């Protein structure tokens, strides 16, 4: 039988592993709602992970690392926004190009900066549990003792849901993705909304990336995002472009990833490869439409 302790550990690690996906996913959701498909979430996350690690290592302050990670993604996000909106480039191709470029730059930069020190631990964030929740027996520490970025991510996700649903800015984002013509006639700039949305994706993805490097494991490895950005995009499709369902999808992918560590610990004999594959397999089944009809924004990937 599954003990309460191991269930608590499983829930805690599911949340932890879902966090980078959640941040990238929420960012991507806003951008897709505004009509821009960012295939470069992966590259944006990797930029944040790399610059955050370098910043934290150079200054000794994880919080400065976080700030540097967020700053470093701005040129990447601006490049994507410029390609997708001003140059009307194919959004998929330009995003994949950015991902290849970022993978090359971060791999090269990592070797040049860290070199032989590659296995060094980088200063990172400690863990924290909210006052009352942390005191719950068994579950308190295992589930709620997390890096504060996890709570920040959840708070931003909820705030994004409220902004999208109840504010004029949310309406403008939604309209830019559904009826850009109407937005233009109303006097708002479709491209300005879309630039803003892509920058938001960049910042959120970078936040997720810095969580990976200086929040979760306190080191950087080459290409450490390992497709998390693509999973985030799949989560948006799985979530049918709605915040609540996207959060659910990220938690599901996080839980699937957590099984990798949980099942072997429980003595269940399942091939490791199958467990590593599981989140991608779930994401594939999700985008394959096994979860009901998909209703993408009407003008997704169509430049204005």
């Amino acid at each position, binding site marked *: 039988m599954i003990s309460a302790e191991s269930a608590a550990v499983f829930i805690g690690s599911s949340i932890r592993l879902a966090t980078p996906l959640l941040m990238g996913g929420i960012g991507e959701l806003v951008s897709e709602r505004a009509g821009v498909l960012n*295939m470069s979430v992966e590259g944006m996350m990797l930029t944040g992970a790399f610059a955050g690690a370098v910043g934290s290592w150079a200054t000794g302050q994880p919080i400065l690392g976080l700030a540097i990670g967020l700053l470093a993604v701005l040129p990447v996000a601006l*490049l994507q926004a*410029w*390609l997708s909106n001003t*140059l*009307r*480039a*194919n*959004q*998929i*191709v*330009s995003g*994949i*190009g*950015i*991902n*290849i*470029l*970022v*993978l*090359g*730059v971060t*791999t*090269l930069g990592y*070797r*040049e900066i860290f070199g032989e020190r590659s296995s060094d631990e980088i200063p990172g964030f400690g863990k924290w549990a909210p006052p009352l929740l942390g005191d719950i027996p068994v579950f308190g520490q295992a589930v709620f003792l997390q890096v504060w970025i996890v709570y920040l991510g959840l708070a931003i996700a909820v705030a994004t849901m409220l902004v999208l649903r109840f504010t004029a800015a949310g309406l403008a984002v939604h309209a830019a993705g559904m009826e850009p013509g109407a937005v233009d006639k109303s006097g708002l700039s479709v491209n300005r909304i879309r630039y803003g949305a892509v920058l938001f994706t960049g910042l959120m993805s970078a936040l997720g990336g810095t969580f990976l490097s200086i929040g979760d494991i306190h080191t950087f490895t080459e290409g450490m995002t390992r*497709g998390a950005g*693509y999973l985030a*995009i*799949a989560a948006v*499709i799985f979530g049918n472009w709605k915040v609540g369902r996207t959060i659910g999808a990220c938690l599901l992918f996080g839980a699937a990833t957590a099984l990798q560590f949980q099942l072997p610990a429980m003595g269940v004999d399942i*091939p*490791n*490869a*199958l467990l*590593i*594959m599981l989140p*991608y*397999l779930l*994401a*594939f089944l999700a*985008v*394959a*439409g096994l979860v009901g009809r*998909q209703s993408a924004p009407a003008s997704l*990937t*169509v*430049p204005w």
Partner: protein
Amino acid sequence: MSRRYQPGPGILISIGAVAAAVLLGIVLIALIGVPIGDAVDAFVDGTVGSAYAIAASVNRSVVFALVGIGFVFANRANLTNVGGEGQIAVGGIAATAVALYGHVAGLPPGLPFVLPMLAAVAAGALWGGLAGILKTRAGTNEVISTLLLSFIAVWLLYWCVQSNALLRQPMTNSATLPESLEISDITKLPLVTADPSLPLNIGLPLTLLIAVVVAILLTRGTVGLRLRAIGLNPVAARRAGIATEWYAVAAMLVAGGLGGLAGALMLQGDQYVLKDGFSSGYGFDGLVVGLLARGSVVGVIASALLFGFLRSGGISMELQAGVPSAVVQIIQGIIVVALAGAAYWMERRGTTR
């Protein structure tokens, strides 16, 4: 949905993008502190320095060309196949399985190496066709589905070489590596020359033949016209009586099948053993080759040669001169971004077509 790449005078833009990216790569090498002379020497050694280096570069180009031709074929119907990596992986798995355990030894001459190739084509076609079926049945964006299928395939390969029940070689001692047995000599691809210092295998003429057939299909026959009609306006194409869904699936079957064949050539012509990391980024390089070609099969051959030699030179620069292979990756990234950005600029100028 996505803008298709047009053939035409875009060749100048492609050349410009490649030249600018290569220049930047040279600057990077200088910044890293590697003497440019050493890097150039290593690059020349690894590309045209010997008959063996030339053959290795050409064999690499052949793999990129197959993935690139598949990309161009599917892209004619406005389908973007970014799943080359996974199609190579499943092709490699299928070819290994048939070559090792398909009882091909006693078959008439030729069949022992042809059957694994056919199995690889079938596996790749399945992997690509799956994305095509999802596209037509559920409207799933083929970019995201082929990407996810690639991740699945890469881990499937890892599973195959880790598990004794699958393709891992029998454990004789604790140091047995997690990889397959080496395939037998009769399942390896025959060389086109008798000279073993120039190991060009039959993958080269086969790929050239496929290139000619695809070029004719795309430019001379009704197939290319129909694919283009579907790509430009699927509703109008359907009204005109074209079986759009069938063509879309077929286009992805072809693209995937060529990716699978590329995997067979890598296994049977070069590596002979299936191991983790088998596809090693060749699928993504092939994708870039397809993008560079801007819709033309001749363009695929040219950019496949460019990338084959670039990759060989990159490997040699890393081994001999200590230039990180990431430099080549940066060059590739810049090329893709520059070409994606230039596509609209050219259409606005009306220089395409």
